């Protein structure tokens, strides 16, 4: 009796959710579900258009990573980390502009009072601060609400 009641309640709840089903508004194909466990932290390094300054900066960033950054723990509160931000900035905007972007990022990193009322949050708990917002091109800015969690 109880199990039947539970089933009916469950079905009624399902029926109510049926009215808001939007899965089939686009035709879909077969897809496999991955069995693997998600690795929360995505690779921090993203490549942009390869130029000579970018190649040089990437090389030194990799050296810095190998000998220092990968050994002293996870200290940067931002995503991408400051060194990766520098590489991506140079890739986005060239060496001079990229250096200025990095300088600004470093100053903001030194701010001990920064918080989630200033930056959106990346899913691993860091402040989401991508370089494309700092290229001084209004069209490139993708505004995210401070405190919102980004995937």
């Amino acid at each position: 009796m109880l199990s039947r009641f539970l089933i009916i309640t469950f079905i009624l709840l399902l029926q109510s959710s049926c009215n808001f089903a939007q899965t089939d508004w686009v035709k879909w194909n077969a897809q496999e579900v991955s069995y693997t466990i998600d690795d929360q932290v995505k690779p921090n390094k993203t490549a942009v258009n390869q130029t000579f300054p970018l190649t040089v900066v990437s090389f030194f960033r990799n050296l810095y990573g190998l000998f220092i950054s990968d050994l002293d723990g996870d200290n940067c509160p931002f995503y991408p980390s400051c060194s990766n931000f520098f590489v991506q900035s140079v890739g986005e905007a060239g060496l001079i502009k990229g250096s200025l972007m990095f300088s600004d990022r470093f100053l903001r990193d030194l701010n001990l009072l920064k918080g989630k009322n200033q930056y959106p949050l990346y899913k691993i708990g860091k402040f989401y601060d991508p370089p494309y917002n700092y290229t001084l091109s209004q069209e490139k800015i993708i505004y995210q609400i401070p405190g919102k969690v980004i995937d």
Partner: protein
Amino acid sequence: MKGFLINNKFLFCIYFLFLLPIVLYSQNYIDQQNLFSPESRLKFGSYLYSEEDYLRASVEFREYLKYVDNDTVRFKFATCFYKIGRFQEAADNFKGLFTSRNLQQESKLAYYKSVFFQKNYSLFRISFNNEFHIPWDYKDEIKRLYYISFFFDNSVLPDTNNFFSSFPDSNKSVIKQFYFRKKFPEYKNPTTAALLSGLIPGLGKIYVGEITDGFTSLLVTGVLTFLAIDNFKHNHNFRGWLFAGLGAYFYGGNIYGSAAAAQIFNAGVKFNFDSDVRLYFEKRNYLLPEIKL
């Protein structure tokens, strides 16, 4: 007759026991025989429509309309596309109903809604201004939508008189707020921010509202400048130049960052305005009536 019945009562028993149910049962089967007949497709399509399975419903309605011309079904067919966000197809199909006897006004209203939600505001306004198949029963609603469209793109806002008078009194105060927020957004000037930071490091960031960032910039450039001067005073030239160089670097970064912060601030102002407007009108169905068939 009586003799016939008495003589053949065995056969009549067979008839009533076996034949009649078979005939009745097969009659039922004949009704359901063709699941793909136009009538069946309409029934099934209407069921899918009521279940909000609009893509499948549209397929059923399309097949039905190949055989039967029915304005209500054609309207529902177009509405399926509207509901799933395929506004161009919805608009094209609603256009086909402009000459309908019963649904002319509704289809014209739906057409304008489709163009509006396609975010083709310039086409919407051109159509409205040229009175392209305006649904006269819903002219006020379309006119409101016309004015609402100005909130969603960068076109010059029309003057206030006609704008505000198109909306009911209950919405007027909010519409006025949106109007003046759109016309006079509270943007920060990136050049002003950069100049202020050039004058006093961090001041541009404070101007934009990033107070703690501003004070950090001021502190860092200040400390580095002090260290540079101090080292030069004590003839530690290498260290002096090092700190001076770092100071200059962060000074430049602070100016750049202030301009960038102003741009991000402005992007935030626009984003918040767009969200507020969209939320307000979505809650009120864009002040449009629900079309019931």
